[in-house]
């Protein structure tokens, strides 16, 4: 028994265009996501990262290869509707546009939507809804209408709606892309807390470098293939490689890298946070300060 919640082997998927030609989006992908981990998937548009998420949740079915999600073989042809249903209960998904995920006109009714679909007893739903509201810090908005909330708040409600189904893993498909900086910070903080405190596996699909930094592991996708797969520190120190596939690195990393390669200072390449950079640059300043 492996400890992987999502496990792919030679996974392939292509969209069919109107004239019948296949457009490969996922090519021969092999990877495993460990239960309880926080993994970021980076990639620019068209790299196949959102398609991967949809495959994990059985919205799309793979062309070939193996994909096991939560112990269920998604490629199994004998999969019943109940199996898919159970899979979706375990693997929650939060999408980009918060407006297009909320169903009900009252916040707590919306959070109850998932558990209601699962046929859970009313008292238990109530308890789960209250827990979920607390988990995203939105308790005081229980009776509000979603239209009265900000983008970040709506997205937190969407997250609460998933938490109430008690999933093992949540896939965030660019869930912060439409939010303002405050909303993004709120949502990221919620995601981190869910991973840390509730032990929920998080798969964060994003194109923001600073969000990917906060993960345990970063998978960089390029044209349907896994381009890099390592800790954030090791991924982001490969500045040139990232830039070659059209991705940026965090500003601080870029600065440090340029100081190193262009100005020739002897400083480490794997600086991710501004605090680290400040420390190292201060040290550097003292060292060369004496000479000039």
């Amino acid at each position, binding site marked *: 028994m492996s400890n992987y919640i999502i496990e792919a082997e030679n996974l392939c998927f292509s969209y069919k265009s109107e004239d019948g030609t296949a457009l490969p989006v996922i090519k021969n992908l092999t990877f495993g996501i460990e239960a309880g981990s926080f993994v970021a998937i980076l990639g620019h548009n068209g790299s196949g990262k959102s398609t991967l998420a949809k495959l994990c949740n059985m919205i799309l079915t793979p062309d070939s290869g193996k994909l096991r999600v939560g112990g269920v073989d998604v490629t199994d042809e004998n999969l019943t509707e109940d199996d898919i249903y159970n899979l979706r209960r375990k693997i929650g*998904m939060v999408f980009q546009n918060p407006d297009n995920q909320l169903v*009900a006109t009252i916040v707590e*009714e919306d959070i109850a939507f998932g558990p*209601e679909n*699962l*046929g859970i007893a009313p008292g238990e739903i109530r308890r789960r809804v209250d827990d979920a509201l607390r988990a995203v810090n939105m308790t005081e908005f229980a009776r509000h209408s979603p239209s009265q909330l900000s983008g970040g708040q709506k997205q937190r409600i969407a997250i609460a*709606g998933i938490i109430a189904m008690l999933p093992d893993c949540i896939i965030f498909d660019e869930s912060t892309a439409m939010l303002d900086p405050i909303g993004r910070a709120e949502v990221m903080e919620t995601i981190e807390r869910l991973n840390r405190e509730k032990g929920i596996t998080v798969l964060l699909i994003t194109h923001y470098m600073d969000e990917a930094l906060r993960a345990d592991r970063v998978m960089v996708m390029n044209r349907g293939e896994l381009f890099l797969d390592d800790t954030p520190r090791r991924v982001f120190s490969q500045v040139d490689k990232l830039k070659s596939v059209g991705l940026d690195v965090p500003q601080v990393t870029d600065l440090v890298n340029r100081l190193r390669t262009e100005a020739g200072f002897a400083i480490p390449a794997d600086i991710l946070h501004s605090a680290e950079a400040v420390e190292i640059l201060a040290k550097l300043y003292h060292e060369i300060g004496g000479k000039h």
Partner: protein
Amino acid sequence: MLKDITLGQYFPGNSILHKLDPRMKIFLIIIYIVTIFAANNPVSFVLVLASAFVLMFLSKIPAKLILGGLKAVFFIMAFTAVINIFWTTGEHLLVDVGFIKIYAEGIEYAVFMIVRVISLIIGSSVLLTYTTSPIALTDGLERVLAPLKVLHIPVHEFSMMMTIALRFIPTLIEETDKIISAQKARGADFSSGNLMQRAKALIPVMVPLFVSAFHRADELAVAMECRCYRGGEGRTRMTQLHYHTRDFLMLGALLLFMAVVIVLNFVF
């Protein structure tokens, strides 16, 4: 500007009528309408009119608001009254000027019709539209109509559609506002010209609005599937409706009222 549109006429409050179970309110309104149409003598009509005002008082909604709602049907009331006055024939001729003949029965009938319409509007608005939130109303309707599922009528689906429509009205209004602003910024003119020109100017607003609405529908469907939605089968509800003493009290009071009106029909 579009944000000011209020949906339905729900007037939040805490009166006994607000607290009634939505299912009970649907039954109550049916009983009330039957009673109004059962009344056929002056005493019953006085009672019916009085009951409408009692309900209005119970709802604690400003009378001005409710009576204001009557303005909308003023023309219909006047029209019905005039027709009744001039076209009803009876035994007591009051006015006879050439071809105009007005009978006492005609006037009586006109007054009755007006009382009926007024009571109907006041009664139904304070019992249902003003005191029940759209969501509670949808919920109540789904449960009251649930037995119709036996006849393969998709009650749950209709109520789900209603809920989603209610949920998306503010979103789409906001979007319309944005599109209009965007078009205005590009020089579109929505406020001059005749009716046809103005209607035509709205086409560039409707097209993107529809495109986005379909797009939203698609995303929402995927999101709902991800949350394990598969129709009403096997679904539970968090909020359970319970009948309280007040529901039965209101039911009793209204049934008694109906009985009195029907008995009065035989007395007079």
